[in-house]
């Protein structure tokens, strides 16, 4: 194999053969090393969360990749090409300027106007000290009810928008809640305190990707509709939409339903 090892000959055929072999082996090796190296680079430049989210988003069924402007009735039909990250969207202004038409009802759910909503069912509230409070929105809270356990990041930990903010466990289900914004955790709350995290973003954050105003109810309507289909059971209908009031602790109430799927869709797993 190498000069000096028995069987090595300085003949044309032998050298060409082994040369080709080493070239091939080196190509395979460098390809794999390059993949590893680029992955490390992705983490180091904090691109990783965004890439992961992009990949997850690309795998979502088309129906679930609906643009906020479609929800708000500003456009007839539009699939989001930007992984729900309106900060990257070149056409955002164009659509945002159009008039919205949406149901006025919030289905008995509590969606205060002062908050911004993430498509993974978290809300963000700017505080006076420049921090932002993050919590689980009312639909998610109704679904989960009281979680069995919550795994929150330590204060000081960094979270990235669309990355995992914290984890909820309920029964056999484990839910990763997506962070609505980037920032450093300054304080942690919990289910009983009504909010989960307080984070301090780096500089003035761009919150354009979060839902607000009329979009929220339209989005809620679509989410409830989806939930109804997913949870499937007709007897569940009254407890869901149709102007009814969403039951608190739905997971406890309907243990037989396909929560795996429903939670995954809800929390954008």
């Amino acid at each position, binding site marked *: 194999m190498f000069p000096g090892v*028995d069987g090595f000959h300085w003949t044309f055929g032998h050298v060409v053969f082994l040369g080709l072999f080493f070239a091939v082996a080196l190509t395979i090796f460098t390809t794999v090393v390059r993949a590893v190296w680029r992955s490390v680079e992705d983490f180091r430049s904090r691109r990783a969360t965004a890439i992961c989210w992009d990949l997850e988003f690309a795998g979502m069924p088309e129906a679930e990749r609906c643009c906020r402007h479609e929800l708000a009735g500003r456009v007839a039909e539009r699939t989001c090409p930007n992984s729900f990250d309106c900060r990257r969207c070149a056409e955002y202004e164009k659509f945002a300027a159009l008039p919205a038409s949406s149901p006025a009802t919030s289905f008995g759910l509590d969606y205060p106007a002062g908050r911004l909503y993430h498509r993974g069912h978290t809300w963000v509230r700017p505080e006076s000290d420049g921090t932002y409070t993050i919590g689980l929105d009312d639909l998610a809270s109704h679904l989960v009810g009281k979680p069995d356990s919550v795994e929150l990041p330590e204060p000081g930990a960094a979270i990235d928008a669309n990355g995992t903010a914290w984890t909820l466990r309920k029964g056999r289900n484990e839910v990763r809640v997506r962070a609505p914004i980037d920032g450093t955790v300054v304080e942690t709350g919990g289910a009983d305190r009504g909010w989960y995290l307080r984070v301090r973003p780096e500089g003035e954050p761009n919150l354009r990707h979060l839902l607000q105003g009329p979009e929220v109810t339209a989005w809620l309507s679509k989410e409830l509709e989806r939930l109804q289909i997913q949870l499937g059971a007709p007897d569940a209908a009254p407890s869901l939409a149709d102007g009814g009031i969403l039951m608190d602790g739905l997971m406890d109430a309907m243990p037989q339903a396909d929560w795996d799927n429903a939670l*995954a869709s809800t929390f954008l797993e």
Partner: protein
Amino acid sequence: MASYAVADRRWIERGVERTSTLRFALWLVPWALLLALGVYAAGLCLRFGLNQTNMDNRFPFGLWIFLDLSIIALGAGAFFTGFLVYILKFKELKAVLNTAVVVGFICYSGAVGILMIDVGQPLRAWFTFWHPNTHSMLTEVTFCITCYLVVLLFEYIPVLLRNRQLRRVPSFLIFEHRLHLLVPVLAAVGTLLSFFHQGSLGGLYGVLRGRPFAFREGIAIWPSTFFLFILSAIAAGPSFLLLITSLVEKVTGRKLVEFSVLCRLGRISGLLTAVYVAAKAVDTLAWLNRTSPSLGFAPWEFYSYKPFGTWLMLAEIVLFGLVPAVLLLHPKTASRRGWLISAALLVCGGILLNRFILTVQTLALPTLAFDEFVSYLPSWQEVASFGAVVAYGVIVYSLSYRYLPLFPQEKREGYRVSGR
């Protein structure tokens, strides 16, 4: 629902339907038993030596080599699809790319596994790398298959890391993403390697000057079988993929790919089979009239030993070559599922027959004037160890099908259960 079923469900891609955990487990049981039996048989061979087989000094290659050659040829779909998708940009074949990779990985790893039992001293296998005889086709095969198995592994890893649970680990997902972006490089390397080792597997027999039934002249260091094996492998690869996909669709009762993709595979296979048949016919004529007589052997003698008559040669070229080529190329038959599958079966059968003839008939025929025509029947250990490879393939494929996005379009296009 039992807790294991829930846990199982969490590993299955969201948005696709798979059979129940219980049914899946029941499906795996017989294969697992076959695998266990085969592993036991292989263990016997490793522990006590190859006397457990029915091979002998006159029949030193047997069932294992024949089937190894066959599954490596059938596994050629992996590199060839990669080549078509990444190098020639046949985008629609992306639908079967993942399944091709898994099938290829199974075929190659199974073949290497069997080879490790087939050689008498597996612990010395690395000598081939350390002291290679570069004149030997087997050296070339060993180097290329090993490298290609590594390539297949790294083509399979992205598919594996796409599993619903594994994907949740950000570093896995990022690595998968980065590796996937570089897969065209691997596909190119895989194509190079495959061309060489598929060819060298043919060369393995073509260089046998002492076996005029197999010996062929050729170009430079490559006998004609070198090129014929490449051709036949890339002709059969797509057919095998077509068969596997149809079979999976049949077994699972789900639509997995568009029929047009299967037709495309069939057409590629048909075209290449036609080229192969033409080349094979020319080669056979050259061998009959030139090569064999020049070594002192009357070629028709080779066909005077029953059951290896001339019918075998005709069957190989006409029934398993020309006929499926026509079926796959004729627009009428090529657009009918039944004909498509039958033709693909014939193409794959032709590969098996070709590898069988070259392995078994070559060895059975006498060379010396006073040799006898010899026969060989594999022992249960040989059959069982190969059965283990089949079982291993079925199990790996079933697990891959259940837990990995082998057919990404299945979810994207929202295919639903057909029939049932």
